């Protein structure tokens, strides 16, 4: 606790090496760290932008990449029209730009393959980002921990990381993807077309070989409130549910 820990997350510069549009509103930015760190899946970084007049804006963004992708991190940033940081990334930032960030940060909404499973992940919209780091970490580590991811998006084209997730689902190696679209019919037989509810959570837990040892829920505040309540109604103990919320 103190100086040693402080030295682990000073501000550093990171260079944008790749930009990849994920959905109409979400774009991934890949940063090469000048001071590489090994994060834990689920952690975030703080990003700081500085204007010529000295004004600084900072925001937290979850890391989408697995800890194993050493030296480079992926942030999947949703464009918020009235924001001041996300529009900068979407409209101005380019490959080669240097951005200040510090991390890794956060010590609660984290999962490691060594923690084992089964694990239930529930994400809404860009709330899937820290959960994606967990799924990728499981894959990179060839972990056998069963994971079910319930991912709620408005429409099929807003399913972030869609092809990658479906590819992992198709392996049938203990990772199970459940998509639910709130404004479109389901596209796959096993998916849903409604908001998350207790019945869906019951069915999600039934896809796991045993009851989950932890559940991670991330999304907007309204989403997390509803999804956490659905989990409790599906008899997942509140003490096993970890949440991360954004927005109002």
């Amino acid at each position, binding site marked *: 606790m103190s100086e040693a820990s402080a030295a682990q997350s000073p501000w550093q510069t990171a260079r944008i090496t790749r930009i990849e549009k994920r959905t109409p509103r979400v774009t991934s930015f890949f940063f090469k760290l000048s001071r590489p760190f090994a994060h834990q899946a689920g952690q975030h970084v703080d990003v700081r932008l500085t204007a010529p007049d*000295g004004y600084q804006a900072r925001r937290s963004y979850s890391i989408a990449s697995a800890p194993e992708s050493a030296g480079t991190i992926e942030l999947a940033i949703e464009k918020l029209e009235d924001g001041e940081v996300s529009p900068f990334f979407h409209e101005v930032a380019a490959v080669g730009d240097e951005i200040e960030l510090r991390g890794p940060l956060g010590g*609660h909404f984290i999962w490691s393959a060594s923690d084992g499973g089964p694990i239930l992940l529930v994400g809404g919209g860009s709330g899937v980002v820290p959960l994606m780091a967990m799924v990728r970490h499981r894959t990179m580590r060839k972990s056998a921990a069963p994971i079910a991811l319930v991912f709620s998006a408005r429409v099929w084209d807003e399913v972030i990381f869609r092809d990658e997730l479906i590819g992992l689902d198709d392996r049938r190696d203990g990772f199970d993807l459940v998509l639910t679209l709130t404004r479109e019919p389901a596209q796959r037989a096993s998916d849903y077309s409604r908001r998350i509810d207790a019945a869906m959570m019951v069915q999600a837990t039934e896809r796991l070989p045993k009851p989950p040892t932890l559940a991670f829920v991330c999304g907007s505040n309204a989403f997390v409130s509803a999804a956490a309540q659905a989990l409790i109604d599906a008899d997942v103990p509140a*003490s096993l549910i*970890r949440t991360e919320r954004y*927005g*109002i």
Partner: protein
Amino acid sequence: MRPLRKRDVLMVTRGFSSGRRPPTDNDARIPPGQYLEQGFPVLSAGPTPRLRTEDWSFTLKHGPRPIKKWNWTEFNALPLTRMTRDIHCVTAWTKFDTAWQGVLVDDILADAGIAPPTAFTLALSFDGYTTNVPAKDLLDGKAMVALLYEGKPITPDHGGPARLLVPHLYFWKSAKWLNGLQFTERDEPGFWELRGYHIYGDPWREQRYTGDP
């Protein structure tokens, strides 16, 4: 804009200007690295507990030993004080003029008939959350157990029925779903303080994470 400190080495971000900055009429009220928020965002580490006031209680402790326990009715009979304060969340939003009513920690100690027995406290919550606050930061009108927000009962999302309010520290110190205050012999890190967040959390010194100066 805050005055720049000597040790600040600014790396100007290409193409970023302060033009998108949310408007504020009073920069001096915004701590470094914060932005002004009009809404009231909700953050928590787990599900929102739904607590009935008939099941609610508040226990004052010295170490493991209970000094006094109040039920909801008894606690509401203590003197109510108004506090209107700016609040600062470590996730970088600041909200001006939040209006609370509740029982000052001074009045809780007075009702228990004690002076602070140690220099440190842990705030305790129904969901197991804890956060440490030095006793001096809770006294002399600096902190309260809030029961009303904007004149109405505090909603569960915002920590109702009762939450700690320590507005001069980052808002994770203002524990939601409060059910006790424990005086401790040492400064014992609480939930977030054990998970990378600063032991004290002064927004004006930007003490966000463990080890920040």
